[in-house]
């Protein structure tokens, strides 16, 4: 360390000074306690404890190099660091900075859920220069009364015996009971029922609470097939038949992959495995539950398509698949095989790599899979090229929590929007990012009864309903502005795509 002669705060020196000063002061106060007043022993005991702690940091422990080198003052770093996330979220991060959802995005969902005025003033905080996709409006917006209805019927293309008509193009995306606590499942299920939309069960096994609340359900078959599994991991046809005998199970979704962890199976940390969950899923307590990376039946494209046909046959319901796009060539072969076998899923859920998860390996969350917009565009293009687009519906998910991004997804080919975190935010999620620890401060992704207590089911179910109402309201207004009479009329040409957007490569004749 150079001695500069200037007065600077040199933390190295300060730490060394502290390490000597603490025991010295302990001794000094002890002597004062003897000579001057016994009161000094309050200080001598305090400093004695600090001396012992510091000795442990410097010579006892080996885990933290910083404490081993600098002792007690090094704790300052850890203390400050530990309050960092809160301070940033409360005070220091600006309104458009946080991820996955910044304060503006969260606030928009909160306002929609609480039914409060959502007009903004003065101007947009978005970056208008070169990355933001915009919707092109028409010079002659149409009136609401000219719109066609937004009903979507799943299963109509193949003449499914039990097609399902969704009144409003929104779905509560799969979140398992397990990732969610019981109260949260009830909030979403009750909210879905009130809002007349669908709820996806996620891969949580037998949907006990969903059925109790009586909303329309998509039952998700995850790669571990919780709820419908044989001991060898294959589908148990009888269990599936029993399950679809429940009247509110309207559709089945086969999960191939999820945006937050494409190429990995589901993951439920051991902290969240209660006795009931171990029973509903058929898994042991005290171990992380890791689903296999793929379905036992699906080893290649041919068998995957056959499996879809099999589930359609057994369930007699509309059957969709959920996937995050990876290799485009593979998806092209997949659709080609569907055509060859003349088997199409009734819908494909395209989940963007930006999707959420209760728990996923960080590398997968950050680095694997194609983001929603380019993925969706690619899927729509390939289906159109292979003349298969009219054989199925497309559901899109991946941070589609507000009308802006939802509109873009519709323009890119989506028929329906699914969201998980949008509905979590509507139920009061504050983005504390603790879904995997069983410590969710709002009581959504936890089984701790003391934390779930905070979640008032009736009130939050109403918020979910409000949120859907307001999303639909904005969707209708945006549609009118484009001059289109239905979602299906929207196209890529309704988007303005600036040069630095990931979608720019899809512009053929620039407009």
């Amino acid at each position, binding site marked *: 360390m150079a001695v500069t002669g200037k007065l600077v705060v040199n933390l190295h020196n300060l730490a060394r000074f502290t390490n000597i000063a603490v025991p010295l002061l302990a001794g000094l106060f002890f002597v004062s306690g003897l000579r001057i007043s*016994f009161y000094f022993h309050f200080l001598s005991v305090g400093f004695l404890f600090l001396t012992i*702690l510091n000795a442990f940091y410097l010579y006892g422990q080996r885990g933290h190099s910083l404490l081993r080198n600098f002792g007690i003052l090094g704790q300052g770093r850890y203390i400050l660091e530990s309050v960092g996330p809160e301070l940033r979220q409360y005070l220091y991060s600006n309104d458009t900075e946080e991820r996955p959802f910044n304060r503006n995005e969260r606030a928009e969902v909160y306002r929609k859920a609480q039914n409060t005025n959502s007009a903004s003033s003065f101007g947009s905080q978005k970056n208008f220069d070169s990355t933001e996709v915009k919707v092109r409006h028409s010079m002659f917006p149409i009136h609401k009364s000219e719109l066609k209805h937004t009903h979507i019927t799943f299963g109509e293309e193949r003449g499914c015996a039990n097609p399902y008509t969704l009144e409003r193009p929104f779905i509560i995306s799969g979140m398992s009971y397990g990732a969610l606590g019981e109260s949260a499942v009830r909030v979403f299920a009750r909210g879905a029922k009130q809002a007349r939309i669908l709820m996806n069960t996620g891969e949580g096994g037998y949907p006990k609470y969903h059925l109790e609340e009586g909303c329309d359900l998509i039952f998700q078959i995850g790669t571990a097939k919780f709820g419908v599994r044989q001991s060898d991991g294959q589908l148990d046809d009888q269990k599936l038949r029993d399950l679809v005998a429940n009247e509110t199970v309207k559709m089945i979704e086969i999960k191939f992959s999820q945006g937050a962890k494409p190429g990995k199976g589901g993951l439920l940390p051991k902290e969240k495995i209660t006795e009931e969950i171990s029973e509903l899923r058929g898994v042991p307590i005290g171990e992380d539950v890791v689903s296999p990376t793929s379905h036992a039946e699906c080893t290649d494209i041919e068998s995957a398509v056959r499996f879809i046909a099999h589930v359609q046959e057994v369930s007699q319901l509309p059957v969709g698949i959920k996937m995050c796009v990876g290799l485009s060539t593979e998806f092209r072969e997949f659709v080609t095989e569907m055509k060859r076998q003349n088997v199409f899923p009734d819908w494909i859920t395209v989940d963007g790599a930006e999707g959420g998860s209760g728990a996923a390996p960080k590398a997968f969350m950050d680095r694997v899979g194609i983001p929603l917009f380019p993925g969706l565009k690619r899927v729509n293009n390939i289906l159109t090229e292979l003349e298969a687009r009219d054989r199925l519906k497309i559901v899109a998910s991946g941070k589609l929590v507000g009308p802006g991004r939802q509109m873009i997804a519709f323009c890119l080919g989506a028929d329906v929007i699914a969201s998980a975190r949008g509905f979590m935010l509507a139920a009061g999620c504050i983005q504390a990012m603790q879904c995997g620890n069983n410590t969710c401060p709002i009581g959504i992704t936890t089984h701790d009864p003391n934390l779930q207590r905070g979640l008032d089911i009736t009130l939050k179910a109403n918020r979910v309903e409000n949120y859907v109402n307001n999303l639909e309201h904005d969707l209708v207004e945006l549609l009118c502005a484009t001059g289109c009479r239905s979602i299906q009329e929207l196209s890529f040409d309704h988007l303005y795509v600036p040069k630095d957007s990931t979608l720019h490569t899809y512009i053929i004749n620039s407009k």
Partner: protein
Amino acid sequence: MKSRAPSLILSWIAQIIAIVIMGQTLYFKFNGAPESIVLFTELGMEPEGRMLVGILELVTCILLIIPASVTFGAILGSALMVGAIIGHCTVLGWEGDRFYLGILAVSVLIACSVILYIRRYTVPFLGSALHGDETPHEERY
């Protein structure tokens, strides 16, 4: 969460011992029992010191009862008892009654140490350093 059930029970027994021993002396301190006044007069802390120590011991007892603050209570309790023992060693001595009182302080100190040992992973400023040694996937470096 880390400690297994039997040791947690042992911790609770130690907590109760500490609370009972400290708690019953509070009565004498706050009421100004003659023995208590004598002690604190010798220490030169009468009456403010008597009240101060009494209040701190009361706080310790409360912290030791509430599950979320047990380790804080044990730290505060052991600090007070070290102070008491210093008192016996430097001023009060260990003769007769004083020996009995001193042994009580030592007992509470031992009880607090047992609590801290059993709950060492959750002790503030200490737990994470202990973790660092034993669990390699701890997030800190």
